[in-house]
């Protein structure tokens, strides 16, 4: 290969209290498609933002086209030829396609925008990527996939040498992805360096030439795609932390009755219809990569999103899931993966956060008595080891692990029959992680049903009695608890290179 167009050496980025990236090296060559892989919190977005000047570097050096650079704003990086297309289309849906492509550098005559020339130029750029739509049409009149392609047209309109695509495919269907890939290949053949972030392994193997894997802010591996098997890729992404945590004692008791049964529950564009049975006193693990549909399953079961097919039975009776309240009344609790946006109420105290669900269920007129609240708070602060042990502290000031424990406690005080935990251990320290795992095991031993979602396979396999595997928004397998991490990993990786496909089908059929 030639000289890298982007060469990042020893990059570290720090946020208050967090080392988001630690000494990461990254290279990008002209005319290659380079996939950047990693789970949530691995540092993919941070690396991109470090490159485009959104985040300042704590350490390290960036060379662009051989010269050291230090962009301080995305506009600078863009002017230099590094264009970024984000997952959420960052265009103005209320403007026309031509304006979205050219605004800021539109052709002008005496300060007046030359509409005709602008549309002509836009049409040229659209033609370059083979997209034939009316440049004068309003952007929001097009489906999201086309909007994404328009964003790419804008990105390459500046003669970009580097094109960063941050999860551009997460909302596209197969045909749309194919169209996108066709365009990526056109650009690659023109010598553009493409940095591609996605969660879909199929796509990585289809389009990329090289793969860089990050995990927990560190560089794990950089390989030519052809030299990295799926199983190795998944294992690099998910990592293995064997031996770090104490072994959780597996319970010997048999699980009780089926508490919740989902029959053909699904939602178009979110997750394909699936069957699932969760029994009292068992922990069901949900394994899969980000974007595999694992979170969507949880949201459907809780009524946070509405299913458009299938039905849910609780204790054998059909449940009309009109929303979270219906689920809560049926004894289902759900702790979202997005702690900040959908979990904590940051400005309120630990006490208020802890009793929120209980209070919501009682209605405003029947407050949780102060004495009871204090008892509950004291109990759970001790039980879950919430620190600092100050009930009046605003929960936003606690560390991630302790916030997570407060959220766990919020649901435990309502004594649910089924507890759905979506990535309860993400981004928290090892100690807190072990504590949460132990609590989950204890709860199940006391008869609670738990649906446990985690990106860490070790963890899923260790705490679960059964493991459900998700891939590409489908349930692909259901395995017994004594399954090995490697088996699950093979199922998640899918593909043919390890001969696991056969096993998948069998598992699905069973």
């Amino acid at each position, binding site marked *: 290969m030639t000289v890298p167009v982007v060469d990042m050496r020893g990059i570290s980025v720090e946020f208050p209290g967090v080392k988001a990236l630690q000494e990461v090296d990254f290279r990008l060559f002209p005319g290659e498609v380079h996939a950047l892989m990693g789970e949530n919190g691995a540092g993919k977005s941070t690396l991109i933002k470090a490159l485009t000047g*959104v985040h300042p570097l704590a350490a390290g050096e960036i060379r662009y086209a051989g010269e050291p650079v230090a962009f301080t704003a995305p506009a600078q990086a863009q002017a230099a030829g590094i264009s970024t297309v984000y997952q959420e289309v*960052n265009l103005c849906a209320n403007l026309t396609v031509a304006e979205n492509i050219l605004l800021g550098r539109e052709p002008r005559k005496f300060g007046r925008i030359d509409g005709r020339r602008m549309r002509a130029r836009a049409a040229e750029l659209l033609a370059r990527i083979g997209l034939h739509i009316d440049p004068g049409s309003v952007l929001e009149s097009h489906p999201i996939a086309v909007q994404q392609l328009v964003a790419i047209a804008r990105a390459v309109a500046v003669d970009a040498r580097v094109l960063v695509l941050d999860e551009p495919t997460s909302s596209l269907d197969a045909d749309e992805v194919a169209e996108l890939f066709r365009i990526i290949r056109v650009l690659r053949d023109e010598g553009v360096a493409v940095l591609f972030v996605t969660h879909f392994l199929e796509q990585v193997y289809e389009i990329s030439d090289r793969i860089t894997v990050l995990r927990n802010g560190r560089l794990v591996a950089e390989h030519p795609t052809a030299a990295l098997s799926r199983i190795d890729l998944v294992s690099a992404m998910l990592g293995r932390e064997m031996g770090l945590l104490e072994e959780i004692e597996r319970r010997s008791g048999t699980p009780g009755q089926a508490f919740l049964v989902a029959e053909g529950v699904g939602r178009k564009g979110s997750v394909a219809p699936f069957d699932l049975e969760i029994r009292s006193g068992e922990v069901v693990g949900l394994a899969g990569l980000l974007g595999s549909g694992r979170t969507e399953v949880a949201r459907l079961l*809780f009524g*946070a999103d509405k299913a458009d097919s299938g039905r849910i039975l609780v204790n054998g009776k059909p449940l009309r899931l009109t*929303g*979270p*309240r219906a689920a*809560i009344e049926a004894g289902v609790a*759900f702790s*979202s993966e997005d702690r900040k*946006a*959908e*979990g*904590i*109420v*940051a*400005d*309120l105290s630990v006490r*208020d956060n802890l009793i*929120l*669900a209980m*209070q*919501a*269920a*009682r*209605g*405003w*007129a*029947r*407050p*949780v008595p102060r004495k009871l609240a204090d008892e509950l708070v004291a109990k759970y602060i001790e039980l879950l080891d919430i620190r600092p042990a100050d009930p009046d502290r605003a929960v936003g000031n606690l560390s991630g692990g302790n916030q997570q424990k407060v959220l766990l406690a*919020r649901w435990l005080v309502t004594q649910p029959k089924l507890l759905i935990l979506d990535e309860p251990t993400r981004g928290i320290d090892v100690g807190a992680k072990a504590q949460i795992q132990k609590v989950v095991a204890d709860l199940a031993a006391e008869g609670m049903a738990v649906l446990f979602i985690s990106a860490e396979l070790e963890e899923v396999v260790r705490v679960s009695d059964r493991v459900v595997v998700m891939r590409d928004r489908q349930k692909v397998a259901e395995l017994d608890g004594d399954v090995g991490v490697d088996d699950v990993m093979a199922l998640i990786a899918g593909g043919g290179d390890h001969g696991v496909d056969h096993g998948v089908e069998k598992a699905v059929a069973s």
Partner: protein
Amino acid sequence: MKNRLLWPVLALVALLILNVVVTPTFFSLRLQDGHLYGSLIDILRNGAPTLLIALGMTLVIATRGIDLSVGAVAAIAGAVTCTHIAAGGNPWVAMGLALALCAVLGLWNGFLVSVLGIQPIIATLVLMTAGRGIAMLITEGQIVTVDSPVYRQVGAGFLVLPIAILISLAVLGLVALVTRRTALGLLIESVGVNPSASRLAGVRARTIIWTVYVFAALCAAVAGLMISSNVSAADANNAGLWIEMDAILAVVIGGTSLAGGRYSLTGTLLGALIIQTLTTTVYTIGIKPEITLVFKAVVVIAVCLMQAPVRVRVGGRVRGKQGVPA
């Protein structure tokens, strides 16, 4: 919490000191015929309607809302009461009617905001515009004067202290009690701070929002009764004109953010007092009373800048959580 109230307290203290310097007898109170008189009493009495409306507004703003229609609602309350009394009705029944009608108007606002999901500022703009028309419809465009000793008590009566002050303080106490003794305060703040988390925790946001708009309308109604009772007349055009702006200012000066979330009733009380004291101060230090508005503008800007989300540090660098796209 304490920190948030620092600037309003300082502003109020500064205003009071200024008054004492100019008028040494500013703090003196005298008892005459069992009625308490004095500059401080005047401030409290004149500020009573604003305080009432600001209390309702505080809860609305805490849920990320705003209610522009309170001035019009106040006018309607006065109009209904005076028209009914003028037609020979019982003043108690008249006031009851007014409160009931205004509760319905609050339900209407709450319906637009919580059920139809219309932005609060536009949803309440409808009633702000139409409300004065409705008030004039009720009074048939006249200024309806009444002669009812019972009704006069609401705004101009005394029970050692002016009754208007007692009503406002009673409502303040009631709100404080209800929001703290029930879970209403907690749920209002939780909806205001993080609506999606609240929804997932099972909070009935719709009921909460509906409740605060009804409460705001009721506060406005009582304030409207005070205003109209004070002059024993209903003026559909001018009663409660711009009082929604004063109320919003009182809330904001009191440290409750227009972005919703944590609210402070004490802050709102301080805010209302600052606004009223300012008006009085301008008068006592001998500036033309009409110019009060200029001072109001200056105080608003000063207090808001002190509490602005983006602070200016020494050296002029601007800090804030703006600018970093998620």
